[in-house]
C-alpha cells in the first residue's frame, strides 16, 4: 500500500472567531475538522434548512469545495519566501464587497466537485454597500474566490495543506468532472512555479536556468543538468507529498518522493546532485527544518 500523500505534512491548527468565541480548526491526516463543532454534518443540514451556519463549519465546507480547485495552486504560495498578504480583515473586506444588494438573494455558489447532499447555505449576508451590476455567474465566481482567500487566511500551514490536497486530487488520475487534458497547462505551471525555486536553491543557480516539466510515466521522473540548464520532470504528486510537506530540498538533497512517513519523520528518495543515482534517506523535522537523519 502506497504512503498517503499527507504522511509527511505537519498537522496544523488555527483559532478563528466563530460566533461569540474563539474556536479551533485542525488539519491532520488529510482532513480539516472543526474541533469545537462535533456535529458539523448536523449543522450543515440545519443550515440548508435555513438555520445559521457557524464560521467553523463554513470553512470546513469550503475546504471540501476547493479540494480540486486549481485556483489554489494558481494563487497559493510557491516557496518559503513567497508569502501571501492575506488577513482576516482582507477577507471581511472581500466578503463585504461581493455581498448581494439589498433585496437580492445571497449567492449560492455551485462549486465543481461539490458533494451531493451538502448544499452551501447563505453564508453571505445582504449588506447595503453599493456595487456594480454583475451577472449571477460572476457573483458566484467572486464568492468562490473570496471563500478561497478565506481559507488562505488560516495561515501558512493550511495554505500548504490545501495546495497538497488539490495536487493530490489531480495526481489521482481521471475522475468525473476532472478534465486532466484541460488542466495540464495549469498543473505544469503549478509544478514549475514551485519546483523551479527549490531546484535553483538546491544547486545555487539562477531560476531562469531551471526547466520544470510534468512527468507522466512510471517512476519518479528525471533531473538532468545539460548546458548549464537543469531539466527536471516530476509528477504532480511531488507537489502534494514533497513540496507541501516543506521538504523539497533537505541538506543538499533534492527530494524526489516520499517512500514512508509518520510526521515528523520520513523516508524519502533524494538526489545529491543531477545525474547521480537517487538514494534513500531518512529525514526528520526538528521543529524548524527538515534534516537528513540517516541513510538506509
Amino acid at each position, binding site marked *: 500500500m502506497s504512503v498517503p500523500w499527507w504522511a509527511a505534512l505537519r498537522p496544523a491548527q488555527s483559532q478563528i472567531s466563530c460566533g461569540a468565541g474563539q474556536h479551533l480548526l485542525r488539519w491532520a491526516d488529510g482532513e480539516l475538522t472543526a474541533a469545537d463543532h462535533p456535529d458539523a454534518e448536523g449543522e450543515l443540514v440545519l443550515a440548508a434548512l435555513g438555520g445559521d451556519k457557524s464560521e467553523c463549519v463554513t470553512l470546513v465546507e469550503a475546504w471540501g469545495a476547493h479540494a480540486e480547485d486549481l*485556483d489554489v495552486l*494558481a*494563487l497559493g504560495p*510557491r516557496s518559503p519566501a*513567497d*508569502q*501571501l*498578504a*492575506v488577513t482576516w480583515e*482582507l477577507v471581511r*473586506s*472581500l466578503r463585504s*464587497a*461581493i455581498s448581494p444588494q439589498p433585496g437580492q438573494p445571497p449567492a449560492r455558489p455551485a462549486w465543481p466537485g461539490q458533494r451531493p447532499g451538502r448544499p452551501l447555505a447563505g453564508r453571505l449576508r445582504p449588506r447595503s454597500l453599493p456595487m*456594480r*451590476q*454583475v*451577472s449571477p*455567474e*460572476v*457573483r458566484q*465566481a*467572486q464568492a468562490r*474566490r*473570496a471563500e478561497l*482567500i478565506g481559507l*488562505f487566511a488560516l495561515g501558512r500551514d493550511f495554505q500548504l495543506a490545501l495546495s497538497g490536497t488539490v495536487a493530490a486530487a489531480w495526481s489521482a488520475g481521471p475522475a468525473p468532472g476532472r478534465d486532466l*487534458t484541460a488542466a*495540464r*497547462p*495549469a498543473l*505544469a*505551471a503549478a509544478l*514549475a*512555479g514551485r519546483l*523551479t*525555486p527549490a531546484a535553483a536553491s538546491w544547486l545555487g543557480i539562477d*531560476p*531562469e536556468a531551471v526547466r520544470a516539466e510534468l512527468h507522466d510515466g512510471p517512476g519518479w521522473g528525471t533531473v538532468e543538468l545539460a548546458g548549464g540548464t537543469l531539466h527536471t520532470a516530476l509528477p504532480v504528486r511531488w507537489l502534494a507529498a514533497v513540496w507541501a510537506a516543506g521538504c523539497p530540498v533537505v541538506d543538499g538533497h533534492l527530494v524526489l518522493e516520499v517512500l514512508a512517513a509518520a510526521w515528523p519523520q520520513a523516508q524519502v528518495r533524494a538526489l545529491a546532485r543531477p545525474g547521480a543515482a537517487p538514494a534513500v534517506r531518512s529525514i526528520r523535522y526538528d521543529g524548524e527544518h527538515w534534516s537528513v537523519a540517516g541513510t538506509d
Partner: protein
Amino acid sequence: MAAGGAEQAETYLRLLAEAELRRAPVFPGPGSQPHRVALAATALASAGAISLDTAWRVVADFQAACALRTAGPTSAMLSLGGWQAWPAGSAGRSGQLMAARRAAVAFVTSPPQPGLIPPAPVPAEPEAPAAVPIGTTLPLPAEREGWYGELLLLALARTGTEAAITLATRWAGQTRRSAGPRPRHAPFHEVAAVDDRGVSYRATLWDMGIEDGRDWWDCHLGLTPAPPDGIRWLDIGPGARGRYIRVALATPDWAGGIATHPVARATAGARLLDRAGDELLAAGPASRAAGLSLAARVALLITDLTGSGVLAADDAAVARLLGLGWRLGVDLGLAADGRVPRAALPDTWHSMLADGDAADGPVGAAAFAANLPEIGGAWFSLAGLRSDRGGATLHVMASGWTPQGSGWVVHGLGPHSDPGQIALTWQARDSAGRWHLISAMHWGSQQGMIQMRLVPPLHPAATSLDVIVSDGLRQVSATVPLDWLPLGNIR
C-alpha cells in the same frame, strides 16, 4: 496555429506568468503599459493560439496572485476568469473578429473590474456605403481677426443612416492686414445642407484634430439626418457672400477599376508578424507601442509566438521579419543577418525601405470616390485624399469595421499601438510603383469616417493609386485617379 497547439501555448503563457510572479510579485495592473503577461496573452490570442477566455483567465490569475502578495486591490483578487467577450450578433466575420479584439483591448487597457459585463456592440448587419466625388471649394466668410477660411469638399459618402462630406480646410486669407496672427485652430464656420426637395440637414465638422497651426486640416462634415435615396442633389452652404455649392448625388461613371483576388493563405501568427513588419516600416522602430519602443514590442511578439510553438523559429514569417529588422538596424531579439534573401521580403517592404524617408509628395487633393465590395464582412468607400510633402490622408467610410484604439488618434493599429490587429490590412501602391502603408488612423465621429495616413508620400509622378485591403483570404484593390486639385492659392 502551426506547431504546438493550444495546450502548448497556454502552458507557455502560464510559465511566463510564473516567471514574472517569481521575478517581481508587485501588482502590475493593466493600462497604457500592459504588463508582460498581458502582452503575451494578447499576442497569443491575436494569433488564434489560445482563446480569449484562456487569455483572460491566465492574466486574471496572475494579477490576483500579485495582488495577494502585495495587498493589492481587492478588485484584482476577485478579477476572475470567464471572459465575457462582446457578442458579435449578426456582424460579419470582420465584425466578429473586431468584437473579440475589442474585448482584448478592454482587457489590456482597463483596470480590473470584477464582474463588469461590457456593453454589447451594435450587432446590425453592416450596410454598404456609397460615395460620389465633389471636388469643389466653398469659400467661407471672415471669422476672427478678419481671417477667412475655405472648405475643399472632396466626396460625399453615405449609407442609409450615416452621411459625411470629406474635406480639407484651411485659413485662406485675411481681410485686414493689421489684424492678429492666423488662428491655430481650423476654420469653424457653420454650414448646412438643403436637398432638391427643400429638406434641410445639419452639417457638423468632425475630426479636425488638434490646434497646431497647420496649413490644412483633414476632416469631414457629418450630415444629420442622412439624405435618403432618391435625392438628386444637395446644396452646401452658406459660404462667403451666401454662396452654396451643389453636390450631385447621382453615381458618376467611374474610370477606375476594382478587382478581387484570392491571397495565399497564411497562419494568423504569420499574418501577425507581417503586420508587425508593416508597423515597423510605417511608424518607425522607435515609435511607442504598449509602453515600449515598437522594436521592443515586436521582439516580444516574436519571442512569444516562437516560444509558445505558434510559429517555428525558422518559419518564413519569422525569417522575413528578422531580415527586415536587420535592414532597419534594430534588434528583434533573435540572431539575424543579411543572409535573409532579398526575395524573402515582400515588395511592399522593399519599397518602404527604399522610399521611407522621401519628402517629395505632391501638394494637392484628389476628389475621387470608390465603393469597394465586401471584404471580411465589412464595407468601405474611398472618399478622396489630400497629399502633402510627407504623406497623404485618405478618407474612408467604413461600415462593419472600425480601427482599433481608444477612439481618437490611433498611432499603430492595435491596442495602445500594440501591433495586434490582423482582421484587415491596408496597403496602397501608386502608379509610379511606390508602395504605401498606414502609419496612423484617425477616427472619432459616429459616421464611420476614418482618416488613414499613408506613408511615404505619393510619388510626384503618380497619376493613380491602388488601395488594397486584405482579410487574409481575399484582397480587394481599387484604383483611384489622382487628378490633383491644386492647393495653396490664396485668394
